C-alpha cells in the first residue's frame, strides 16, 4: 500500500540576514524504489523550488548529497524511503559551513585537510619522465585502493563526537587519508614524519573510539581498523622518542 510520507526539512539561508533557521513540513506520496534523492527532487519540482540541497551523480559516488537523515548522516541517493518510517527529518551535516537548507560546503574543509595531511606522495627520488612507472605488487595496490575509496561526503566527520566539539580535529576522513599514504611504498615519510601530522589531540590521540564514523560511512571504509593502526603506530613513535637512541 502506498504511503504518504511526511518530510520535516531544515530551512535557513545564512546569506539572508532576515532568514531564521526553522523546519518546514512537506507531504509526498511514496513511489516504488523511491530514494531520498528522488523525493527531494520531486519536492523541489512540485512543491518548493527554493529548497536547497546538493547532488550530482545520484549513484553514491560523488558524496554531494550527504545529510542527516533521521539523526544519522547518510547519502540521500543511497537511502530508500521504504527503509525509513513515515516521518522523515532531514538536517544539514553539522561541522561544515552551511550553504543553505540541506547544502553544506564540504570542499573547503577537505581541501584544508589535504593540505594539513600533506596529501601527496613525498619522495626524494628524482623523476625520470622516460622511465617506466615503478611496479607495485597487486596486494599493495589493492590495499592502497581500499583506503583511497573515500568520496569526501563528510558523513564520518559529521558523526564524529570529537569533530563536533573541536574545529581543529582532523577527523576520520583525515586519518584514512594519512593511512593511505602510510601504506604507499612510494611515499618515503617515516613514522616520525607522520607523527608531526597526526601525533596530537587534534590528530589521532583526540579520537575517542566511538565508532560512529565506522557505522555511518556509506562506502564502508575500514575506518575502525585504520584508527587503531594509526594510534598504535603513533603511540609507539612517541615511546621511541623517549629513548635516547629512539630518534
Amino acid at each position, binding site marked *: 500500500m502506498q504511503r504518504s510520507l511526511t518530510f520535516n526539512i531544515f530551512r535557513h539561508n545564512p546569506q539572508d540576514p532576515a532568514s531564521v533557521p526553522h523546519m518546514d513540513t512537506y507531504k509526498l506520496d511514496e513511489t516504488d524504489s523511491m530514494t531520498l534523492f528522488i523525493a527531494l527532487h520531486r519536492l523541489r519540482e512540485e512543491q518548493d523550488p527554493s529548497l536547497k540541497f546538493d547532488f550530482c551523480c545520484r549513484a553514491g559516488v560523488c558524496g554531494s548529497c550527504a545529510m542527516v537523515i533521521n539523526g544519522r548522516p547518510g547519502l540521500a541517493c543511497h537511502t530508500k524511503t521504504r527503509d525509513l518510517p513515515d516521518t522523515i527529518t532531514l538536517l544539514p551535516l553539522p561541522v561544515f559551513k552551511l550553504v543553505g537548507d540541506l547544502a553544506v560546503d564540504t570542499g573547503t574543509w577537505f581541501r*584544508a585537510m589535504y593540505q594539513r595531511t600533506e596529501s601527496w606522495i613525498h619522495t626524494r627520488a628524482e623523476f625520470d619522465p622516460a622511465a617506466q612507472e615503478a611496479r607495485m605488487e597487486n596486494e599493495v595496490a589493492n590495499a592502497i585502493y581500499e583506503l583511497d575509496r573515500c568520496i569526501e561526503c563528510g558523513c564520518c566527520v559529521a558523526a564524529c563526537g570529537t569533530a563536533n566539539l573541536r574545529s581543529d580535529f582532523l577527523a576520520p576522513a583525515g586519518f584514512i587519508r594519512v593511512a593511505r599514504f602510510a601504506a604507499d611504498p612510494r611515499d618515503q615519510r617515516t613514522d616520525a614524519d607522520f607523527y608531526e601530522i597526526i601525533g596530537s589531540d587534534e590528530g589521532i590521540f583526540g579520537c575517542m573510539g566511538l565508532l560512529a564514523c565506522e557505522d555511518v560511512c556509506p562506502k564502508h571504509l575500514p575506518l575502525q581498523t585504520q584508527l*587503531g593502526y594509526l594510534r598504535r603506530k603513533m603511540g609507539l613513535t612517541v615511546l621511541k622518542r623517549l629513548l635516547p637512541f629512539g630518534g
Partner: protein
Amino acid sequence: METDCIAPARPRSRADGLLDWVQMGTGAALALFACMHMIFLSSVLFGAGALNGLSAVMDALHIETLGGIGIAVVFCIHATVAARKIPFKAAQAVTAWRHARLLHHPETWAWVAQVLTAFILAVFITIHIWTGLTDLPVQALKSAVRVQLGGWFWVFLLVLPALALHLVIGAWRAGVKWGLITRENRADITRKGLYLLGGFLCLSLLTLLRFRLLPLE
C-alpha cells in the same frame, strides 16, 4: 559548531601522545584494581572470617597501606589526565548532548554515560579512599557498620553501577582506540563486555547486600 575550514593545528609535541599512554595505563591499572578489590571484598559472602583473614594477611604484608596510597595517586593522575577530554564548557556540553541525542548511536551514548559516571566516581571514590585509608585494616564489621549505620548503602547503590559502567565502557573504548577490537570481533567483544558488566554488578551488589545483613556484633 560550524566551520568553513578545518582549523590549523598547533605545533607537535610529545605531550599528547604520552598523556594518551598515561590515561590508558592508569585506567587499566584502576580497572584491574577495582576487579581485585571487588573479589577481595566479596570474600565476605563466605563469612566475616574469610574477609578478616584475607585482610590480616594483606595488612601484615603492608599491601593495604602501600597499595591504598598507590591507588590513590593513580586515581588522581587518571582523573586529571582523562578530564582533558571532557567537554566542560557549557556550549561544548550542550553540543555533545545534542549530538548524542541526534545520532541515536549506542557507543556515543556509552561515552556520555562514561563522562557522567566519571563525575560520580570522582566525588565518591575520593571519599571512599579517604575513609578506607584512615581506618585500616579492612574488617567486615567496620564495613558493615558503615553500610548499615553510616548511610553508605545508598551511596554504594549509586557508585557500584557507575563504577561497573565506567570500567567496562572504558575498557571497551581502549580496545577500540588501540585496535584490539576490530570490525570482525566487535559484536562478540561487546557481548562479552555486557557479560562482564552484569557479572561485576551482581558480585558487587551481592557483596553490598551481605554487608547490609551482616550482624553487628
